C-alpha cells in the first residue's frame, strides 16, 4: 500500500503502461475481495466504505425498482441504512421495520411473510453492529427470490468475523467495509450480483462497470486486498481465539459485577463485541473513567455536541432507555492479546466499583419541564 502511494501514480483507467500496472493492482484487489465472499470479481464495486455501499444498495435498488413501493428492513440497522430508508419514506416508499427479539434477532419467518410482489428491496444487517447477533437469513433469501425482490445484506460487521459466501446467503447485494477487516479507511465494496439492477449514485465515468464514476482509490484497494488475504488465511483460527478471549472476559466480569447483563445472544453471535449493561452506573461515566485508565469502550451513539441518546438497537430489543444508557460495548480485535484481556478485565471491574460508588444512578426529580421543551 505504501509502495503504491509512493510509486504508483497511474490511473487504472488510462491506456499507458503505468495505467496498466495500476489496473492490474486494482483487479488483483478485486479478485481477493471477491474470493473472500465466494463471489466473481466482476460483481465487486469498490466504494469509499460501508456507508457508501449501503447508500448505493438502498438508493440504487429503489431507483431501479419500477413500480414496487415497499422496503422491508428492521429497527436495529446501522444509521447508514436507517437514514436512506427515512429519506425514501419521505419520497413515498413504504418502509417496514421489523422488530427484533430480546436478543437482537429478527424472526426470519415474520420477515419472509412481509415479502410480497410489491416489495422492491429487503435490507438487513447480517450481523448487528451493536450486539453481534447473527441473523438467520435463508428463509428471507428464499422469499425474496420468489417475490423477485432485491435482497441486500449489510455485512460490514460480519466479514472477517464469520465465513461469508454470497451464494449460500442467497443475497443480491452485500456491503463490506475495508477498515472493519483491518484494512485502511476510505475503501469498501458492494457485492452486486450480475443480474441485479442497481442505479449508480455517482455519475460521470465508466469506472466500476459504470456503477461508480471517479478515479479508483488504488492505495485503498491494495490495502483492502492485504486485509482480505489476511482474513482468508487466518479467519478460523482468529475467530476461535477471539471467542475464547471474549468468553474469558465475560465470565470474569459476570463474576465480578453482580447484575451485569450481556445484550445479544450467548450463541449465534460474532465474538468480537461484548455489549454489556452495567448495573447502577451511567455508561457515559464508565466510558470516561475507563478511557482514562486505558480501556477503550464505546456507546450506542453520541453526537458531536455530546448529546447521548440511548441506543436505538437496545431500545428496539426491549431495554429501557435507562438500561440502554448503562450499556457499553467492549470490542476485541485481531490484535487483542491475552495480557490486554487480563488488564481490561481487572480494570473494568475496579473502575465499575468506583463509578457505582461515586456516581450512582439517581432518579431525576422530573418536573416535566424536559418533556415540554423537547
Amino acid at each position, binding site marked *: 500500500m505504501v509502495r503504491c502511494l509512493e510509486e504508483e501514480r497511474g490511473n487504472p483507467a488510462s491506456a499507458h503502461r503505468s495505467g496498466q500496472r495500476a489496473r492490474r493492482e486494482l483487479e488483483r484487489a478485486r479478485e481477493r475481495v471477491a474470493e473472500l465472499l465466494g463471489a466473481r470479481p466482476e460483481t465487486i464495486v469498490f466504494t469509499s466504505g460501508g456507508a457508501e455501499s449501503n447508500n448505493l444498495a438502498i438508493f440504487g435498488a429503489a431507483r431501479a425498482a419500477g413500480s414496487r413501493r415497499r422496503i422491508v428492513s428492521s429497527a436495529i440497522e446501522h444509521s447508514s441504512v436507517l437514514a436512506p430508508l427515512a429519506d425514501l419514506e419521505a419520497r413515498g416508499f413504504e418502509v417496514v421495520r421489523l422488530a427484533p427479539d430480546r436478543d437482537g434477532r429478527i424472526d426470519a419467518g415474520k420477515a419472509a411473510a412481509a415479502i410480497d410482489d410489491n416489495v422492491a428491496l429487503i435490507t438487513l444487517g447480517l450481523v448487528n453492529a451493536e450486539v453481534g447477533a447473527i441473523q438467520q437469513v435463508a428463509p428471507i433469501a428464499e422469499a425474496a427470490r420468489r417475490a423477485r425482490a432485491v435482497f441486500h445484506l449489510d455485512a460490514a460487521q460480519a466479514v472477517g468475523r464469520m465465513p461469508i459466501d454470497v451464494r449460500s446467503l442467497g443475497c443480491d447485494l452485500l456491503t463490506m467495509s475495508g477498515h472493519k477487516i483491518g484494512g485502511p479507511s476510505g475503501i469498501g465494496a458492494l457485492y452486486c450480483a450480475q443480474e441485479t439492477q442497481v442505479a449508480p449514485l455517482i455519475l460521470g465515468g465508466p469506472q466500476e462497470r459504470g456503477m461508480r464514476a471517479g478515479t479508483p482509490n488504488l492505495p485503498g484497494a491494495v490495502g483492502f486486498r492485504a486485509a482480505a488475504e489476511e482474513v482468508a488465511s487466518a479467519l478460523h483460527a482468529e475467530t476461535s481465539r477471539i471467542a475464547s478471549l471474549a468468553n474469558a472476559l465475560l465470565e470474569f466480569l459476570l463474576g465480578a459485577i453482580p447484575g451485569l447483563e450481556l445484550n445479544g445472544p450467548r450463541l449465534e453471535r460474532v465474538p468480537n463485541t461484548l455489549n454489556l449493561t452495567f448495573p447502577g452506573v451511567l455508561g457515559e*461515566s464508565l466510558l470516561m473513567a475507563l478511557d482514562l485508565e486505558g480501556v477503550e469502550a464505546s456507546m450506542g451513539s453520541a453526537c458531536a455536541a455530546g448529546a447521548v441518546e440511548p441506543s436505538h438497537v437496545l431500545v428496539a430489543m426491549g431495554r429501557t432507555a435507562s438500561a440502554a444508557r448503562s450499556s457499553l460495548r467492549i470490542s476485541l480485535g485481531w490484535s487483542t492479546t491475552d495480557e490486554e484481556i487480563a488488564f481490561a478485565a481487572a480494570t473494568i471491574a475496579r473502575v465499575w466499583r468506583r463509578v457505582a460508588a461515586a456516581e450512582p444512578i439517581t432518579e*431525576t426529580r422530573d418536573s416535566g419541564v424536559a418533556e415540554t421543551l423537547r
Partner: protein
Amino acid sequence: MNGRVLVAMSGGVDSSVAAAILRERGYDVVGVAMRLAPEPPAGSIRRKATCCSHDDFEDARRVAERMDFPFYIVDLREDFAARVIGNFVDEYLAGRTPNPCVMCNREIKFDRLWSRAMAIGADFIATGHYARIEQDGDGRRRLMRARDAAKDQSYFLFAMGRDELSRTLFPLGAMSKAEVRARARALGLRNADKPESQEICFVPDRDYAAFVRRAAQSRTPAPGRIVDSDGRELGRHPGVHHFTVGQRRGLGVASGEPLYVREIRAASGDVVVGRKSELNARGLIAEQVNLLDPELAGREIPVEVKIRYRHPGLPATLRALDGARAEVRFASAGPAVTPGQACVFYRGDEVLGGGFIARAIAE
C-alpha cells in the same frame, strides 16, 4: 503530578485559561464540557453566543488538544432540566425571580459534576470562576471574593459545602479579566478574545416570560390585576411571570409618579405596585441557607449582604434561624428586596454563606 483535576470547560476564555494554568502546574487535567440546555425547538433561530452550543464545545476541544489533555462532553440535560430549568419555571410561577446560575452551581457543578469527578478518580474539580479559596493555619478553607472586584463571582458559589471547598480549585481567583485574556493569547488559544456570555444560557433571547409559558404550558399563570397598596385596581397584566419585584418598566399603568412592583401575589394573580419609597425594606428572611462556617449558627453577626449579583452590598446583621433559614436586618433602610434571588453574606472578602430570599421584612 499534583493529582487529577476535572476542569469544567464552557469553551469560553475563562475556563480555557483555568484548564491551561492547571496543566502548566503539573495537574493531570481532564477537561469536561457539559451538555445542559435542551435542544432548541424545531424552527427556532440557531442559538448563538450561549453556552453549550456545538461551536463552544469545539473551542473547548481545541484547547484540550493544544494543551494535550483528555477532553469529554458529558450529557447532563435531564438533570439540568429537572433541577435548574424546573426550578426556574416553578419560581416564576410562584411570583419569585430565580437565579439559575446559583442553582446550576449547587445542583449541577457541585453535585452532578462533582460525582462525575469522583467517578473518574479525580482529586479535585476546577472551574473558571473568579473567586478564591484560602486555607487557614488550622486547615479550614474559606471562600473569598476574587481579587478583581469587577469580575468577582463568589456570589454564585455560596452553596458550596466544606468538603467541596477542600477539593475545588479556582485558578483565576487572583487574576483580572485582562490578565486572563493576555494569558490566553500567550498560550495561543483561539478563544482569547471571545465575548462573554451574559444571558441565561437556556433563554438566549432573554424573553423569560415566553420561555416560562412554553415550559409551563397549562400551568402558565392567567392574566390578573395590577393593584395599589390599598387594593385598588390600576390595570390588568398578562400573568405574574412577567414581573419582578422592584421592576419599573412595562407595567402599562399611567400614573403621576413612577410606579414599581412591590409584591407579586401568585395565588390571587395580583401584582401590587407602589412608589419607590414604599419598596424600601428593613431586611429579609432567607431560606435554604448555607453557612460555610457552622460556628456562626445561633449568633448575631455583623455582615455585608449582597441581595443581587451586581448589588454593591449593605451592612446588616445576620441571625441564623431554624430550618436553614436566616433573618437579615439592614443597618439602614435598604432597597427593594426581590424574592427568589440569592442573598450572600460577606465578612470583608470572606463568604460566610448565603441563601435565597423568601420575603422582605418591611419594618
